[in-house]
């Protein structure tokens, strides 16, 4: 029997092109799986030559899923270029409010829209039901949470930037506006309910875990290292802080790493078959240095969460790790819900902070030629690195986006699924479903918001060792 490749080839609008290739060996066993993402290109070229003060606005065009995250990360990097190490309290808190609103609504989209059909209706539920409509039908309350938590997050973004999309809150060295009392009061009126719904969603998720303990812990799972920003006190920190990485056994690989030093700790490798880079921890090398980022890493790397409800939920969560990090891939969703609670609680705290009505918005310093910043975006660690010439034009840019950080981990999860669920030579509906579930846990943002009518549906192709197509399956 010859070696064969099974190719799962989705070409979706918002997220560019991605496909899954599962390679079998001569014995028909799974040898390797790769999750190809072929649209990550041109980011840096898009930015080069632009004036540094334009960049926080321009970079939003990179991604239609998380434009706010790029806006904030670029702003932090350009603060440094503008010679500002620390913005004013009003600017800092306005940015944080926007950031937590973005993380809240983006995590809500993943959990409610993408993941909850799998988790609440079951991996094996018919595709006609295993979607957001099936969830709304079976769990009407969940549909309400999905829509209104999303809407609240958008309201926070709009309140901080004055506009629903294309925010222009940040400028190098600060922000353009403070939070009006009217908008603050409107948000104050809703935040208590939002926190309650997030907690309700967590409780619902925990009931699923209770009923599916073995599947939950084992599905697409494997031990790995983790990396995340962490506060100086070890607490969860999504907007600022130092980089920390832990090994699969929980031991520290590095901690307290300032973003400016990232190249001493992280190296990016290019592979011929993917446009995505493969970052890994320099000291551990290519084979051992890969890691996971995102909500699971944020929970595993911090030692506490600074808001009470989320901290109580974290203590419950860490028990799953039996004294070490939690490695269950499906636990991304659990961690994501805890992050949502933390975001909602933080928003509540900020809404009662008078600094948000301050008028000291921007400061200036002496220009520098380089700026490097990191934030924890909804999908994990996001890094922006710029160099700027004497005229203020960007001469170089390097972006490591969250999905790139999870590149190798997603391959490993797909491989695990293929090993566990591929039987014979058939690409079954069940296999497709399980591959989807594994990828969704990471909530990958496959590209950069190109999105026009006319792209293709999911295409599944079975090839032999010479590349000849054995069979093709199209999924609309």
């Amino acid at each position: 029997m010859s070696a064969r490749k099974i190719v799962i080839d989705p070409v979706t609008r918002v997220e560019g092109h991605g496909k899954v290739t599962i390679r079998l060996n001569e014995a028909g066993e799974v040898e390797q799986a790769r999750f190809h993402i072929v649209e990550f290109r041109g980011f840096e070229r898009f930015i080069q030559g632009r004036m540094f003060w334009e960049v926080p606005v321009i970079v939003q065009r990179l991604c239609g899923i998380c434009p706010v995250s790029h806006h904030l990360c670029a702003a932090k990097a350009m603060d440094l270029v503008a010679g500002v190490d620390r913005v004013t309290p009003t600017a800092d808190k306005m940015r944080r409010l926007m950031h937590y609103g973005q993380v809240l609504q983006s995590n809500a989209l993943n959990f409610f829209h993408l993941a909850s059909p799998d988790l609440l209706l079951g991996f094996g539920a018919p595709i006609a039901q295993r979607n957001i409509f099936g969830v709304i039908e079976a769990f009407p309350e969940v549909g309400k949470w999905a829509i209104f938590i999303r809407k609240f997050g958008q309201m926070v973004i709009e309140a901080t930037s004055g506009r629903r999309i294309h925010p222009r809150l940040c400028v190098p060295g600060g922000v353009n506006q403070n939070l009006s009392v009217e908008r603050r009061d409107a948000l104050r009126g809703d935040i208590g309910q939002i926190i309650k719904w997030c907690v309700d969603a967590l409780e619902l998720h925990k009931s699923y875990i209770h009923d599916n303990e073995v599947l939950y812990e084992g599905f697409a799972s494997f031990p790995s290292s983790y990396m995340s920003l962490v506060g100086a006190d070890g607490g969860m920190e999504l907007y600022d802080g130092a980089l920390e990485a832990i090994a699969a056994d929980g031991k520290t690989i590095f901690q307290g790493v300032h973003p400016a030093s990232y190249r001493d700790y992280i190296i990016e490798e290019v592979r011929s078959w993917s446009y995505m880079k493969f970052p890994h921890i320099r000291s551990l090398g290519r084979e051992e240095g890969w890691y996971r980022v995102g909500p699971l890493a944020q929970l595993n790397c911090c030692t506490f969460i600074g808001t009470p409800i989320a901290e109580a939920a974290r203590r419950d969560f860490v028990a799953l790790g039996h004294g070490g990090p939690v490695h269950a891939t499906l636990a991304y969703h659990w961690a994501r819900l805890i992050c949502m609670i933390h975001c909602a609680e933080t928003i509540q705290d900020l809404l009662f902070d008078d600094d948000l009505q301050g008028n000291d918005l921007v400061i200036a310093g002496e220009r520098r030629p380089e700026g490097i910043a990191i934030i924890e975006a909804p999908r994990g660690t996001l890094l922006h690195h710029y160099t700027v010439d004497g005229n203020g034009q960007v001469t170089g840019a390097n972006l490591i986006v969250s999905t790139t950080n999870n590149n190798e981990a997603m391959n490993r999860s797909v491989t695990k699924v293929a090993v566990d669920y591929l039987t014979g030579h058939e690409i079954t509906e069940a296999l497709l479903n399980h591959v989807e579930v594994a990828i969704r846990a990471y909530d990958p943002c496959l590209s950069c918001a190109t999105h026009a009518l006319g792209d293709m549906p999911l295409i599944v192709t079975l090839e032999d060792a010479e590349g000849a197509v054995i069979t093709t399956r199209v999924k609309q």
Partner: protein
Amino acid sequence: MIRTQPTKVLVLGYGNPGRQDDGLGPAAAGAIDRMGWSNLTAVDNYQLNIEDALEVAAHDVVWFVDASKVGDAPFSVTDVSPSRTVEFTSHLLRPAALLAIAQQYCDRAPPAFQLAIRGYEFEFVEALTQGGRENLRAALGMLTESIRRVRARSPLRAAP
């Protein structure tokens, strides 16, 4: 006494203005918004989102405006009906699915149309192509005329 309200029209233009003709939808929404007509709401976004169902359900006629990589130039128009279709591992939400959410959650899915404006280039450039601009102009002519007709034909509707 029966109160009456004017017909409310929503134009939802979506796409990424940073990717050349992918920005045709937002450009159309921007142009419609600048007309400043009453009871006409025009919003743009990178993509459709589930919370847009609330906005959809609050209007009487909805136009979804997007760029098209294939199909007729300068544009094509199709009716959109609620449909419970979902995509593979994606954040994508199509107009028919959004209408279905509005129907299911808000119990209201207004008449809706997809305006697909033909685009040609989708690389990282923040400008429409010449061909895209010409197609946008033609599409806006049709869209404004259609909205004008709706407003003239049915200026008032019975309030719920």
